[in-house]
């Protein structure tokens, strides 16, 4: 079992040729369907579908309301460590970048956790750089033990693990895994990941499958938009999500739609992905996977985030900080610059204003 085989089916697929065959009737035809195929999804991601963005958005809004109601889950990231052995050209934690490398001690983590818990948040995502030496699985597991006292759902966004390692963390108390493939095009992937264990495309691509097999209940995938044609990357992300749902029907599958942000190192995006593209991607995915989660990080501006809520977003970050121990030491350098620094209380107030309930707790730790 592997998503790689499915992805390889598209190796010689000519996306532009497909897009050039589409007419307005094809778009309205898809909009009239209840269940979308992969081809329908790609149709909604086409340049032609841009003419129908409002109609797609209206339907995406209705479908989201039906399945998720007027609720949005709040979460926040905690960066545990920024030691990294990779050279990903687009990342601030790149091994060649000069920044203070740091790893939180359990005492420091306890302080950070208390600051976050006071805001009422119960869902957190913990992140590390890719360094098995500095942030081994045993360290992450120890962190989970500290965090379990304060939070009811812990997701990890760390380097790719083996199935056994994922199982170890599930037993320790994590319930979700976020894994960004960054770019699904294998050639571009090797161009951008110059050194380090992350160069292994396949090991990363199959990480969500391994975490699913290990019993994770929430699997979140995504491509970092700006590294290749966004329509292709959006399509492959959607296919990846659908593949995971097919193979792990009891898991909650979600995607993120991150766009590149300014970061230490300053690698410019290869492709500019504009606001309208993000709306098209979000709403097309909503119709393709009506029950799929859509996670929105603080990479987007307040204006974008406020508007995307009605279009399909189900989880949104609040009070975010991308530096290690950044809440107790605000002077630390983050992985990337965030665009929305609103606090948890401000995000909750914004949601209520839009008629949405900010959900603080949507899971109960069972281990």
């Amino acid at each position: 079992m592997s998503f790689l085989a499915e992805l390889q089916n598209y190796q010689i697929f000519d996306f532009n040729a497909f897009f050039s065959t589409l007419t307005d009737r094809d778009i309205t035809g898809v909009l009239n369907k209840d269940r979308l195929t992969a081809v329908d999804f790609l149709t909604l991601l086409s340049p032609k579908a841009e003419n129908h963005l409002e109609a797609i958005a209206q339907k995406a809004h209705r479908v989201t309301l039906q399945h998720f109601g007027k609720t949005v889950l709040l979460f926040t990231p905690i960066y545990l460590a920024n030691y990294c052995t990779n050279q990903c050209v687009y990342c601030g934690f790149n091994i060649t970048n000069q920044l203070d490398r740091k790893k939180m001690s359990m005492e420091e983590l306890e302080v950070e956790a208390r600051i976050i818990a006071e805001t009422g948040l119960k869902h957190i995502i913990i992140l590390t750089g890719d360094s098995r030496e500095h942030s081994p699985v045993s360290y992450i597991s120890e962190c989970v033990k500290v965090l379990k006292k304060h939070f009811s759902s812990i997701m990890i966004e760390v380097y790719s693990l083996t199935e056994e390692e994922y199982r170890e963390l599930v037993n320790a108390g994590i319930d979700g895994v976020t894994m960004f493939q960054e770019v699904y095009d294998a050639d571009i992937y090797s161009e951008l990941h110059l050194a380090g264990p992350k160069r292994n495309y396949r090991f990363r691509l199959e990480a969500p499958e391994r975490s699913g097999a290990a019993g994770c209940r929430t699997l979140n995938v995504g491509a970092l938009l700006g590294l290749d044609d966004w329509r292709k990357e959006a399509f492959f992300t959607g296919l990846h999500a659908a593949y995971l749902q097919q193979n792990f029907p009891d898991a909650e599958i979600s995607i993120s739609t991150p766009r590149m942000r300014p970061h230490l190192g300053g690698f410019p995006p290869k492709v500019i992905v504009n606001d309208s593209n993000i709306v098209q991607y979000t709403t097309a995915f909503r119709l393709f996977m009506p029950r799929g989660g859509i996670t929105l990080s603080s990479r987007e501006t307040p204006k974008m985030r406020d508007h995307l809520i009605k279009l399909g977003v189900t989880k949104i970050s609040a009070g975010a900080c991308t530096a290690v121990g950044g809440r107790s030491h605000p002077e630390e350098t983050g992985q990337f610059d965030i665009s929305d620094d609103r606090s948890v209380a401000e995000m909750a107030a914004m949601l209520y204003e839009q008629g949405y309930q900010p959900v603080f707790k949507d899971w109960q730790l069972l281990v």
Partner: protein
Amino acid sequence: MQNDVFKIGGQELTSRLFLGTGKYGSNKIIPQVVEASGAQVVTVALRRVDPGQPVENVAAYVPKHCVLMPNTSGARNAEEAIRIARLAKAAGCGNWIKIEVIADNRYLLPDNYETIKATEVLAAEGFVVLPYMSPDLAAAKHMAAAGAAAIMPLGAPIGSNRGLKTKELIKILIEEIALPIIVDAGIGKPSEAAEAMEIGASAVLVNTAVAIANDPVAMAGAFGLAVSAGRTAFLAGPGAVQKYASASSPLTGFLQD
């Protein structure tokens, strides 16, 4: 009609409408919705219960006169459902439990086999167990034998608002199972709730149809009226539905001449 009460877990209920608490734009509206509907049983997902946060804790908005029925939303198997039920009891949510075991996130259809297993364990522990299920006679019998207090078959997939798609199967449960049959999930309009009551369901549970209505309080009131109208019609004994009109000049009338 005054004496038309039914009992679950020793609790006498006069309202036959149960309400869910998910999907609302704000929990603050829940007391008004409950009042408008007349519901006496309100279900809350334990995954959303957060006693440490009184303002955002959904359970705090359930009026005191109602029976709080926690549910095991999020459970993927019997073991998780059992753990969630025990946590609910420990959190002070009482001893009613609606078992929801869903291992398929695309259709959200319940897993009857795992639900039966959880029913057996929790009923033996003294819970008042209300299993949510796909309407199937054999499974319902197993749940009844395992100690369920009522059976909650779905009318259509959760949140689909598609109505009483499983009507024929639910009718069989009503005829064959001695426990109250409560239609849970799928009901999108008050007329569909009335229809469930007309065929003899003991109660219905509604959430999405009320929560995402433009005016949830008014919709809750409409469901309350529909459930009571459907129940009254059932008790009144509706006339049989005829396929053909009765002829005013019968062909066999000459036999009486």
